[in-house]
């Protein structure tokens, strides 16, 4: 009988009363490995959906004055920078919304509720700039992007979503 794994369903429990403790441990390790692979696959799906959005933005904003405010097209470098940031996403990063902006960059927007938001973008020369608001706390800054998901962004996302450390 051929069995297929349904990615949308939880992994079924495979338990029989006749299995030894050692076998059970092996099965648990196998489940963890499958969980990890599925998480990786899921992260891959998230990244693919974001890459697809970047492509849409590239198509929509590839002309002069795409926003009616006289903005130049979103440049190929800006597209690449956005893709680099997406590549660096570790597991557990909440899904952002991607937004083309008049500064020629693609902004990554996370919002939890009223006055609880974070926005960030990578400039053409590889600098990450971001702004954060949570209640009365406001913060902005910039730093060079070094290829891995910025620790500052991780910290701010953790604070925004009140999560355990995501990366």
């Amino acid at each position, binding site marked *: 009988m051929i069995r297929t794994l349904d990615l949308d369903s939880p992994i079924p429990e495979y338990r029989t009363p006749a299995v030894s403790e050692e076998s059970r441990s092996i099965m648990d390790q196998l489940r963890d490995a499958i969980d990890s692979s599925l998480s990786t696959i899921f992260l891959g799906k998230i990244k693919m959906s974001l890459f697809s959005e970047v492509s849409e*933005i590239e198509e929509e904003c590839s002309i002069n*004055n*795409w*926003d*009616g*405010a*006289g*903005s*130049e097209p979103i440049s190929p470098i800006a597209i690449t920078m956005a893709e680099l940031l997406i590549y660096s996403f570790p597991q557990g990063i909440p899904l952002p*919304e*991607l*937004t*083309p*902006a*008049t*500064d020629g960059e693609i*902004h990554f*927007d996370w*919002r939890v509720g*009223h*006055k609880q*938001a974070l*926005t*960030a*973008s990578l*400039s053409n020369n590889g*600098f990450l*700039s*971001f*702004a*954060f*608001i949570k209640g009365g706390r*406001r*913060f*902005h*800054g*910039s730093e060079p992007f070094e290829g891995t998901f910025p620790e500052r962004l991780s910290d701010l996302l953790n604070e925004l979503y009140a999560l355990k450390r995501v990366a």
Partner: protein
Amino acid sequence: MPSSELPEEVGNSELLARFVFQRRHLYQDGQPKPAAFLPNSNNETSVSRVDSLSDQEIYIEGKECERRRTDNPTLYGRALVGNEVVLDLNLRTVKDEPPPRHANIVGWPLEQSEKKLIALGIAEEANGLKY
């Protein structure tokens, strides 16, 4: 093109409308994103003075802005914000007519992240609506 009879000085609590012509500048629930308020290459953010206008009249004003533009845009929504929010963030709104009711939010800093924070601050105080 005629000008309005609005006073030269924009009132401290005068209601301003930022009309949105880029669909990704609004969240699904109509809340504007910071990018909706970022200034253009002249470091100005174009707004309309809509104090005392009804929702219907504001919509008509938005459609008029859409009609006036030469890039064949689509009006996706509007974000309303009081001028006091602009002033609290150390910017100011100046009359810039014609066209009627047009004004610009000016005084933006040059530093990118600081601009982002101000735009975020305005967006979070704005009342957004998708059309």
